Every structure is written in C-alpha cells, then in structure tokens.
C-alpha cells in the first residue's frame, strides 16, 4: 500500500477540540437567547394573578402593561419622526455631499454620539434640554393648544414625553445614520454617473439613483432605530416625569405615560414579591416587541442583500 496521506491522530484531536469549542460557543449564543425568553416567561407568569397593589393599582396584568406599552410606542414614534429625516440627511451628507476630507471625521463624530452612555443622555436631558424646552411647550400650548398633542397644561420643567422622544431621537440617530450611510455608499456607481452624465443635478442623482437602490436598507435602518428607541431605559427613566396608568396623546403636559423600560428601572429596586414578577412580565412584552422589530428589520436586510446584484 502507498503511504498514508491522511493526517495523524494527534493533529485530528487538535482539530476536533478546536472545532468543537467554536461550535459550543455558537450554540451557547442560541441557548442564551432562548434562555432570555424562557427565564422571563418563568419569572413573569406568576404575575398573571398578582393583586392590584403589586400592579401599581391596575386591576389586571393587561391593564398594568397597556399604558406602559402605549407610552413606549408613543415615545418611540416621536423619536423616529424626528430622527429619520435628520439621520437620512446626515447619512447623505457623509456619503454624497461632504467633501471627501470632511466625511471621515464627520462619520467619526456621529459614531461618538452613539458611544455616549445613556445615563449621560438622561442627565443632559433633565438638566439642560428639559428646562430649555419648557418655554417652547408653553408657546406650543398657547398657539397650538387646539391640537390634542399640545393640549397642556404645559410642563415648565420640560420633563414630558416629547422631551423623552427628543432625547431618544438623538440616541437613535447614530444607529440609523451608520446603516444608511453604508447603504448609500453602496449605490451602483454607474447609476450615479449615468444620472450625472444626463445632466441631473446632485439632488436629482440622489433621488433617481441613490434612494431607490437604498429603499429596503432605509426601512431596516429605521426599524433598528425603532428597536433602540423602544428599549432605551435610563434616558427616559430620568427625563420623564411619569404617572402610572395614564394613556394620553398630550405630549407636553405634566401628566405623562411611562415606558416599559423606564418603569422597570424606576420600580425594580424597590419592588418585592409579585411586584417583581409583574415588572419582569412587562419586560417580557418589551423583549417580544423588540425581538419582532429587530427580526423583521434583519430579515429585510438579508433578503435585499440576496436580491441585489453583486
């Protein structure tokens, strides 16, 4: 027989151990993710028959979670309404408008915005932004008070859900910008050059060549920003002066709905017994919602990545 061409046993052991190790590590990630769902369910379920005094006065778990869910969605929607146009513009500016020498540092600045800890945003929101928005709210109440959003009475400290939304918008901005800027940069070069050669202005190039090819990327970036805005805790917990069990569209008033995450942060350190379970149950709701949003966003990215040529 010819000499064996296969590798020796010693080598194979090393390979087996290493390959096994990497496999275990990735399986661990799946287990951890499943563990989040399982443990939150296990600890959250007992809250189903919690008494009213453990649920912030609400009659049932659903009645406890619903106002929080409403507040979470309201704050996130406000944040996205502000953050989406801004971050698209900033991304466009980095990828297409800024001089090349400037776009690098500018991108770095936006990344630094993402690096600021959320508790510092909270500090800034409560000490700097809120008091400065108070007069603005008074003005809004005076001139646009007929809209349900600005019904007032305006909060002079500015610790309203609109302020929380503004802070959330600032926090979601770097995420949306980072993703859309990469997608804008991936626009087929030939499409852009063709548009320019036909005499299109820069905006027409962007509208005809850049935006259409980036559409699905923009959608998923906005959804990832939504995920961040939904789950952000500390900034909201500090900025918002919330009243439990409130459902209102009034965004500048003194009575504001809380968000799920902020309510947990505020309530958890002092909670006992079934109150802890109730908070964990609301956390489970938050987890499911953000999971679905992120899942959908990533699915869009994956599908558009597969469909795109090249």
């Amino acid at each position, binding site marked *: 027989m010819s000499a064996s061409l296969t590798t020796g046993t010693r080598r194979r052991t090393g390979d087996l151990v290493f390959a096994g190790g990497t*496999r275990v590590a990735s399986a661990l990630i799946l287990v951890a993710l499943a563990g989040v769902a399982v443990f939150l369910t296990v600890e959250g379920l007992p809250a189903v028959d919690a008494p009213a005094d453990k649920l912030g006065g609400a009659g049932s778990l659903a009645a406890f979670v619903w106002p929080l869910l409403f507040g979470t969605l309201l704050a996130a929607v406000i944040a996205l309404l502000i953050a989406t146009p801004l971050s698209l513009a900033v991304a466009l500016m980095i990828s297409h408008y800024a001089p090349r020498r400037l776009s690098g540092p500018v991108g770095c600045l936006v990344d630094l915005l993402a690096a600021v800890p959320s508790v510092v945003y909270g500090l800034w929101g409560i000490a700097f932004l809120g008091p400065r928005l108070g007069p603005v709210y008074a003005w809004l109440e005076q001139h646009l008070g007929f809209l349900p959003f600005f019904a007032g009475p305006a909060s002079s400290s500015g610790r309203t859900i609109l302020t929380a939304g503004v802070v959330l918008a600032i926090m979601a901005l770097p995420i949306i910008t980072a993703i859309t800027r990469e997608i804008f940069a991936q626009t087929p070069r030939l499409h852009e050059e063709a548009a320019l050669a036909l005499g299109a202005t820069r905006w027409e190039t962007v509208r005809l060549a850049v935006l259409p090819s980036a559409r699905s990327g923009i959608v998923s970036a906005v959804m990832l920003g939504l995920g961040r805005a939904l789950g952000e805790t*500390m900034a909201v917990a500090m900025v918002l002066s919330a009243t439990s069990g409130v459902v209102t569209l009034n965004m500048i008033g003194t009575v504001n709905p809380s968000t799920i995450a902020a309510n947990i942060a505020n309530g958890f350190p002092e909670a006992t017994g079934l109150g*802890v379970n109730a908070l964990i149950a609301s956390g489970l709701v938050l987890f499911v919602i953000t999971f679905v949003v992120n899942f959908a966003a990533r699915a869009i990215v994956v599908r558009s990545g597969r469909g795109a040529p090249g």
Partner: protein
Amino acid sequence: MTELDLRVPVPATPGDVPATPSDVPATAVPAPSYPPLTRRRLPRSAPWLAAVVMGAASGIASLSLGWGVLGWTVTAVLGHCVALPAWSRLVEGSRAATDRLVTTLVWVAFGTALVPLVSLVWTVVRNGAPALDAEFLTYSMRNVVGEGGGIYHAITGTLLVTAAAAVISIPVGLLTSIYLVEYGGRGRMARTVTFLVDVMTGIPSIVAGLFAYALFVLFFGEGVRMGLGGAVALSLLMIPVVVRSCEEMLRLVPDELREAAYALGVPKWRVIVRVVLPTSMAGIITGIMLAVARVVGETAPLLVIAGSTDSVNLNLFGERMMTLPVFIYYSYMQPGVPPELGQERAWGAALVLIAIVMALNLLARGIGRIFSPKTGR
C-alpha cells in the same frame, strides 16, 4: 461663451432652416444663435453670501425684537433656506433651486445633529470639572453625609463588572466568529447564528438585566444582587458586538494565506491560531475595545442586578456592587440634602465615565487605523 465659436451653429427652434454661408453674403449673417450649453450660475460664494446676508438681517431683526441668540439662529437658517433657493430660481431655474434647497437642508440637518453632541459634552465638562479632585477619585461614599466622598467604589465596581463581562464575552464571541468564518460556511447553523446575533444586538439592556436577575433568582433566591449578575447581563449585550466585529475582521484575511498554510500541511486549527488570528489581531482588538466601550456605560442592567451601595465591594460573587452609571443615576435622582452636592458628584462621575468611554473609543479607532492591513481603497 466666446470660446465656443468652433461649434456648428444650430437653429434656436426646430422649425428654422439653417442658413448656410454660401446662400447669404457673409456681412449679412446675423449673429448665429447658439443653444446655451451652459446655464447662468450663481457665483461660487453664493451660499456664503446668502448666509451672511440672512444672518445680518435676522440679527438686526432679533436685536430689535429681542429674540435672543436662539431666535437669531433659527430665523437666519430659515431665511437662508428661503433666500438661496429663491435667488437660484431667478438665475438658474427651478431644478437648480431645488438642488440648492436640498443641499442647504442636508447641511442644516447635520448642524442640528451636532448641536446635542457639542452641548452635551460642554454641559458635562462645565458641571463636572469642579467636582474632580484627588478625594473624589480615591474615596468611597461610605458614611458620607453632605460634603465630601467620592466615586472610588463606583470605579472599582465598574472595572470589576466590565472585566468579568469581558472575560465571559471575549472567548465566546471570538470562538463564535471563528466558527462562522472558518467552520460554518454557508450551513444552516452558521446562517441561524449570524441572524440571531444580529437580532441579539437589539435586545434592550434592561431586558438583559431582567434575564440575569431571573437566572440568578433560581440559585440565590429572591432579591439577589451581585456583581457577577451584572457581568452576565453585560456579556449578553457584549457578545453580539464582539462576534460581529471579529467576524468582519476574520473575513478580511485573504484566503491565499490560509491556502498557503494548508499547502504546507498545517492542520486547520494551527492555521487559525498561527495565521488567521495574528493577521487580524489589530481589528479584533479594536472590535473588542469598542464592545467594552459600549457596555461600560450601561446602566439599566446593573441597576436591576448589581444594585447600589455606598461602600467598596471587591467581591463579584456576593453583595451589592456600585458602578459608575448607577452612581450617576442615584446621585442625581436621589441627591440627598442639600441636593447640590449629590448633583455635583453626579456630574463629576458623568465626566469620568464619558472620559473613559471616549478614551476607549479613540484608542480603539487609533489601533484599528494604525495596524489595519492596507486595502486597495
């Protein structure tokens, strides 16, 4: 347009028949009408000009009406958004006007996005700098009422919890990324892991804290608080970041290097350890440092599971452990009497925290830029 005389004259309207030079005596030829190849343009300095004019105009208006700096800025920007496109429309036509409007809006949006960053850094530095001194950094808050005290206990807590989180996350994250790049290929498992890691980056931090609590409650009973729980929660947030950045870096390693090593008969795991990892080491370190920078400022999970205390606690496996972000939160929201002292400590701690995060970020990017393999672009 004098330099364009070499062109063949063409009729201004399609109906006209061009007059050839032979038909008409040269002296009688009217000046040939060229269709304009260039349009009239505003001078290059037009945006600056408009900005200066509108700034001055709104400055006068706001001075006379007493609007203050904010009103001045807002009216100047609005005026610029109207004036420049209007001028451009008169001279250049509507398409160019739209283009100028959008350009202006893009720059305004960028300026708006910078305002919070600048104002935040300024606020933190101005309020936090007075609090910083040697005592602030080397004393804990144990038995401190009113003046004095510091954040030593919070700094040690943050360092310990973050280090423990890194010890958990780095091996798991690095091994996973090696699996994804070197072993998984395009298999179902690798695709699932990639997808779920992406989804995991979006887990709210408070949920990570609740997860750690729910996990530790099983072993230690209700009301458990310990530093290790914080580390577990943080690693849940950190692992996906580590995986993503390491995966990206490993994919940058050229296949030729791997193939050359395989051709020499090196087993696969040695190729990974001796060739792939050293080649991408700079990028991996950058990614890990960015991941650390991300979790070092996390508050919510630590609030839930690590709790808060006034004393130094160096034991990860028992008792409450203070961390910088939690310290900031409590000192500002429950400052004690008088509130100014607690709030000043909060700002000081915020300055320290921001300095740590920014230093990690800049260092990581510096390492990445200096040691990264040179690519074509």
